[in-house]
C-alpha cells in the first residue's frame, strides 16, 4: 500500500471551494482527514446505507399503510413525501455525529490539535478545515441519496437539482453548530445531550407526517427548529412547490452555520491556546 496519496488528495482539494471560503491551510486538515479515511473507505461507504434503509422501511413499508399525504394542496404518495425529509435528516445526522464525536476525540482525547497548532496552522484553520471535511462527506452521502431518490421516482420536479446545495446548507448548519457545541463538552456523558437534541428534531421535523397533524403549539415550536427548515426547503424543491419562504429557510440555515463557525473558532482558540 502506497504511503503517499499521490495526486488524488490534491485533486480533490482543487474541486472543493476551500480557497473561496478561507485559507489554504484549512485544506491541510482536510488532507489529513482524507489520508485517515483512505484506509477506512469501507466505513465511509457503509454510512450510506442507513438513510437508504430508512427510505425502504418508512417510505415504502409504512407507505403501504399510509398511502398518500396532502401537502400544500397536492396529493403525493407517502414515500415521495418522506424521501426529502429523510434526505434532510440524514444530512443532519451525518454532519452532527461527525462534527461531535470525531472532533471531541481529536480535541480532548488524542490531542491531535495540539500537534497541529505547533505548526503555522491557527485554530481558525482547524475549525474551517474540519467543517470543510464534514461538508465534503455529507455532500457525498446526500448526492448518493438523491440519486437513489431519483431512481425510485420520488423526484417530482426539475427544481430538485437544487436539493444538493440545499442539503449542503443543512450540513453546513449542523456541522458548524455541532462543532461549536462540542467545544463546550467536558466528558463523554455530555454526548447524551446530543441525542437529546437530535431525536426530537428528527421525529418532529415534518419528515414523517405533515406539521398539520400536530397540535398548534407543537407546530409553532417546530417551525423554529433548524431541521424543519431543512425539510421544508428540500420538500419544496423536490416537489416543485416553490415560494419565497424557501429562501427564508435557506437563509436561516446559512446564518446558523456562520454563527456556529465563529463560535467554534473562538472556543477552539480559548481551549487550545490558553
Amino acid at each position: 500500500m502506497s504511503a503517499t496519496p499521490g495526486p488524488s488528495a490534491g485533486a480533490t482539494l482543487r474541486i472543493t471551494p476551500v480557497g473561496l471560503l478561507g485559507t489554504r491551510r484549512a485544506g491541510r486538515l482536510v488532507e489529513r482527514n482524507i489520508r485517515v479515511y483512505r484506509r477506512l473507505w469501507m466505513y465511509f461507504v457503509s454510512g450510506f446505507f442507513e438513510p437508504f434503509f430508512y427510505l425502504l422501511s418508512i417510505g415504502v413499508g409504512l407507505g403501504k399503510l399510509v398511502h398518500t399525504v396532502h401537502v400544500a394542496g397536492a396529493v403525493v404518495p407517502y414515500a415521495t413525501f418522506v424521501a426529502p425529509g429523510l434526505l434532510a435528516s440524514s444530512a443532519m445526522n451525518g454532519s452532527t455525529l461527525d462534527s461531535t464525536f470525531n472532533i471531541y476525540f481529536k480535541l480532548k482525547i488524542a490531542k491531535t490539535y495540539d500537534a497541529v497548532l505547533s505548526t503555522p496552522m491557527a485554530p481558525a484553520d482547524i475549525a474551517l478545515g474540519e467543517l470543510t471535511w464534514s461538508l465534503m462527506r455529507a455532500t457525498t452521502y446526500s448526492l448518493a441519496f438523491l440519486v437513489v431518490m431519483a431512481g425510485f421516482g420520488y423526484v417530482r420536479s426539475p427544481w430538485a437539482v437544487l436539493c444538493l446545495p440545499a442539503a449542503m446548507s443543512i450540513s453546513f448548519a449542523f456541522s458548524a453548530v455541532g462543532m461549536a457545541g462540542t467545544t463546550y463538552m467536558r466528558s463523554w456523558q455530555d454526548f447524551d445531550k446530543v441525542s437529546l437534541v437530535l431525536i426530537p428534531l428528527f421525529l418532529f421535523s415534518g419528515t414523517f407526517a405533515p406539521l398539520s397533524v400536530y397540535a398548534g403549539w407543537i407546530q409553532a415550536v417546530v417551525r423554529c427548529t433548524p431541521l424543519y427548515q431543512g425539510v421544508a426547503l428540500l420538500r419544496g424543491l423536490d416537489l416543485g412547490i416553490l415560494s419565497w419562504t424557501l429562501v427564508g429557510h435557506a437563509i436561516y440555515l446559512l446564518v446558523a452555520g456562520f454563527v456556529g463557525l465563529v463560535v467554534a473558532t473562538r472556543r477552539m482558540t480559548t481551549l487550545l491556546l490558553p
Partner: protein
Amino acid sequence: MHGSGAWRGTEQVAESAEPLVVAKGLTKRFGDFVAVDGIDFEIARGESYGLLGPNGAGKTSTMRMISCMSPISGGTLRVLGLDPAQHGAQIRGRIGLVPQEDTLDLELTVLDNLMVYGRYFDLPRSVIRERARQLLEFTQLWDRAHDKVDPLSGGMKRRLTIARSLVSAPELLILDEPTTGLDPQARHLVWDRLYRLKQQGVTQVITTHYMDEAEQLCDRLAVMDGGRFAAEGAPQELIRRYSTREVLELRFGTADPTPIIPQLDGLVQRTEVLPDRLLLYTDDGEGTLGHVHRLGVTPDSALVRRSTLEDVFLRLTGRSLVD
C-alpha cells in the same frame, strides 16, 4: 543529514551572532496564578540551553511561550528576532517542538504522521517524503514506517515525535521533558540523537527534571523553581559555585541523625537532612567519613560521591528535583 546550509528551510537566516531567543521579564499568568515570574535569558545560536526544575516550576509554560503557542502575560520575548504576538505563525514555521505529551496522530501510520505534519508547514510532498525517510532512518523507525502509531513503545513514540519536529528543518528545536517516562535504553538513544543534532548545528532548548539529562545535554542551563530562575550557567560551573566537590551520604535507618550535626561543625561546609539520609558537603569525602567514624557515629551505610545538579538545586531551593 542536517547539512550545513542546505537544510535550513526556505528562509535562510544570516549566520549572525544575534541570539535566537531573548526574554526580558517574561511572565505568564493564569488568572491569579503566576506560572512564570519575570525571567530573563538569552539563547545563542548553536547552543543547547536547559531549564532544570521540578514539576510545576513553570518550564512548560515557558516553552509554550517560546514556541508561540501561549500568549505572554508580561515582559518581552523575541524568537528568531520576531515578536510572537505578531509573527507567531512565521516563527512556528521555523522552529520544531517536541512537547511533553507525544500528541501523535493515532489514526495515522508512522510515515503518514510525518507527511501530514509536513503539510501543515505547506512543504511540497516530494520534499516531505525525502525528509521523512531520512528522519525515520535517523531515529531508527524506518522499518515501522507503515505501522499504526498506537502499538509502538513509549521510546519509539518519543523518537517519532522528535523526527516529526524536524520535518520542517527548524533552526531551533524545543524539547519539553524529552525522556520522561522512558526506560534507560530508550533515554540513551534519544540523548545520542540529540547530541548528533547539536553537532550539526541545531540550537536546542530543553526542559527536564533529570539532572543527568541536564548535565549530559546542556551547554548552559537555568535552574528554575516556582516560576523564577534560581541560577544560570554551565552545569559544571553551577556545581562549582553552589556545591562542594564531594558529598558524603549517610543513612541511619529509622534513627534520627540530627543530634550528630553539631559534632560535625568545622568538618563540613554544609549539611542537608533528607527524609531518608544525611548529606554532608565537603571537599574530601573520605576524610570526612574517617572523622565521622572517629566521633563514634555508626551509620547504616555511607557513600562518597561527587556533587551533582541535584545538590545545586537542593542548595538553592531547599527541595529535591523529583518529588
